[in-house]
């Protein structure tokens, strides 16, 4: 229940502020902002703004960057330079958690601008610092961004995708379908319809076996159908099939399973 957890974080931050523990309060607000930003929760910008009142001068850049992360969909031209500055700053400090946090924030914002060259560059530099992927977490997400961006700029990264699938993380219940779905999407965008359809089908099969992942299963099946329509490869759903798959996507929120910071 991330929303409940966030509410508790905000409450804790308020209490810390009431208690004059400004640094602690600022850090709690930042944690709330980061968690909320993953799901694009309303409070991401609010919590970052509150943190800016509380953090000491030398840490205030974090709240500014958190505000940029919360607001890039609305104000990309203002937010991206702030995020970039944050990323460059933490890269100097070599603090792994910080590098991961701001590299991923950059990836989201740059992808919306189709700036794949910059994503490739950022993820390469961050990955070199962070080392190999070991679990279904934000490090995996960064690796998926790196492979996607390399594919977008025309590099051959098939070996990278296969290595990720063969690694322990690629054989976990949630890692395997997520990696396959991302690879399938990259393949489809490269125009490799048959391979993309295979990977979407494989992702769907794995989501089916994990249970309680109807939304993901539906998205994988629909994506395979899109590949069939756009690229002429793979299975194409008939009308009844589309209705049946759409029914799987019954919930009004949280439509995806993503690695979270919790």
């Amino acid at each position, binding site marked *: 229940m991330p929303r409940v957890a966030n509410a508790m974080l905000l409450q804790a931050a308020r209490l810390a502020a009431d208690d004059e523990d400004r640094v602690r309060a600022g850090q709690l607000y930042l944690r709330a902002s980061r968690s909320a930003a993953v*799901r*694009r929760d309303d409070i991401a910008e609010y919590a970052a703004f509150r943190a800016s009142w509380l953090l000491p001068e030398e840490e205030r850049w974090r709240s500014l960057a958190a505000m940029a992360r919360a*607001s890039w*969909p*609305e104000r990309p031209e203002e937010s991206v330079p702030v995020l970039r500055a944050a990323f460059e700053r933490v890269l100097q400090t070599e603090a792994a958690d910080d590098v991961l946090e701001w590299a991923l924030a950059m990836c*989201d914002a740059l*992808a*919306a601008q*189709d700036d794949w060259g910059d994503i490739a560059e950022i993820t390469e530099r961050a990955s070199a610092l962070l080392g190999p992927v070991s679990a279904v977490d934000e490090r995996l*997400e960064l690796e*998926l*961004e790196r492979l996607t961006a390399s594919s*977008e*700029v*025309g590099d051959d990264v098939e070996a990278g995708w296969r290595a990720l699938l063969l690694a322990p993380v690629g054989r976990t219940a949630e890692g395997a379908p*997520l990696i*396959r*779905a*991302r*690879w*399938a*999407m990259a393949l*489809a*965008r*490269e*125009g490799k319809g048959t391979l*993309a359809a295979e990977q*979407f089908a494989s*992702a769907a099969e794995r989501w089916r076996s994990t249970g309680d992942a109807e939304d*993901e299963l539906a*998205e*994988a099946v*629909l*994506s395979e*159908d*899109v*590949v069939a329509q*756009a*690229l002429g490869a793979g299975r194409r759903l008939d009308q009844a099939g589309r209705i049946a798959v759409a029914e799987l996507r019954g919930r*009004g*929120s949280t*439509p*995806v*399973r*993503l690695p979270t910071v919790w």
Partner: protein
Amino acid sequence: MTQGLRAWLSGRGWEARGRLISAWAVHRRAGHLAGSLRVAETLHDLFKAGEEWQDALPWAIRSGLQLAAEAAATELGWAATAAALRPHAPPWERGAMWEAIAAAGTDASDAEITALSDGLLDAAADHETTEHATVQAASAARRALATVLCRVPHPDAARAADEVVFETTHTPFPPRRTIQGLILATYAGVCDACELIAEVFGFTDRAHLAGFGLAVELVSDSAVARAKAVELAEYQFPALLLCAWADLPDLHPAVAARAADVVARSLDGELAGDEILRADDRGRLARWAEPDAQRAVGHALSDELISPSEIGAHRNEAAVGLASLAERLTTETAGELLERVTVDQQLIGTPSTQETMSSHPNPLFARVNMRAPAAHDQVRAVALRAFAALAERACRPDERRNAVASGIRDEDGAVRAEAARLAAPMLDIDLRAHAADDNPLVRAQVLIALATREDLAPDDPGLLANSAPDAPLALRSTVLRIARENPGAHPRLVQALRADPHVYVRAVAHGIETPS
């Protein structure tokens, strides 16, 4: 996504934008191809609703919406469209990108066209998929080639022209974009598609196409095109109209007889379903009708022009038809119609009271709602043209001259431009004084008139000033035409036009010989 739509419905566009882009990012990070395309389309719809075309175009391209990309690029122009193009885009985005080029590529530079040509030619070579099922990427690539055809680099130019011809002859839709590209390229001497131009305008009503005026010129100047138009005129109504505007019935009695027959049947209300006769076409065809029929058509057109209850477009067409017919009327009929127009000039000066047309009185059930601006300045301008033509035919030159002299001082630019055009042979009317008119249309007509009078110096400052890249395209085209018709006379002007942003202007300018 749901939160974004809720925000949109509540009129909170800023929040809808944030929510929907977040939804797109979530789908992208989860590997949901279908989801990301769904949200991309919704984002396009949001930006389109807000008329934020700069944002709408990338989302139209991301979701592969070709026609939406075309609409956004038309609004944006080339610079912003070029920024949204990506050479390594996914296959479903390319059709949308090419449609955007088709819409806005006329201002692409030679270097940009060279960079785009290979990709466009490769895509255009796909002749297997057709547009019969849906809008297709290969067709969009061929339409994009049509837009830049004038400046496709030499080794690829012939291939590009072939692809544009293929699209023109195979599309199930009126080939508006490709025929315009072929007309401009033919005029610029890049290719010769005169026969095809005659065929297309012979089969398809010009309301669905572009470039009719230039097409008529090209058909008039080409023997094969004239033959094709005359051949089609026997059974294709648009071809009969094309022949009429190219004055081909004068040389082909069978076509003239058909024109007269159509006019006679129009007066009896017995036109066939495919014989859709606009007022300007009616006046044109009546040039070859019997004198009684000409008189009846002349009065009908006058009625339409005079009536403020007609929409502006209809009054405009009536005036064009009347001006066209006037040249062939008897002196008596011309005099009669001139009296009629003179008596009712107060009504001609009254703007149309009707500015909209609707398919149903209740707006909720009206499938079609058409805005029909009164465009009263345009109506008055063509009314002046009709008046002048009638006065000339009625042998009343003083009335003609007085009307033109009065028109040149009119408050409406369109009227002044028409008066400047008519004043070309009236050497006692000083046009130099109007060469710096605020209205570019007036300046264009004054320059043409001065060129007709041979009153332009080599590289006349008036010409050079109006060839700047920021001058309206209509004005640049005018000075281009003057330079083309006087090769060698304006070398600096030609040099300036060779660097014009528009592909057509550059292409024609490069074809004009200048002293070395």
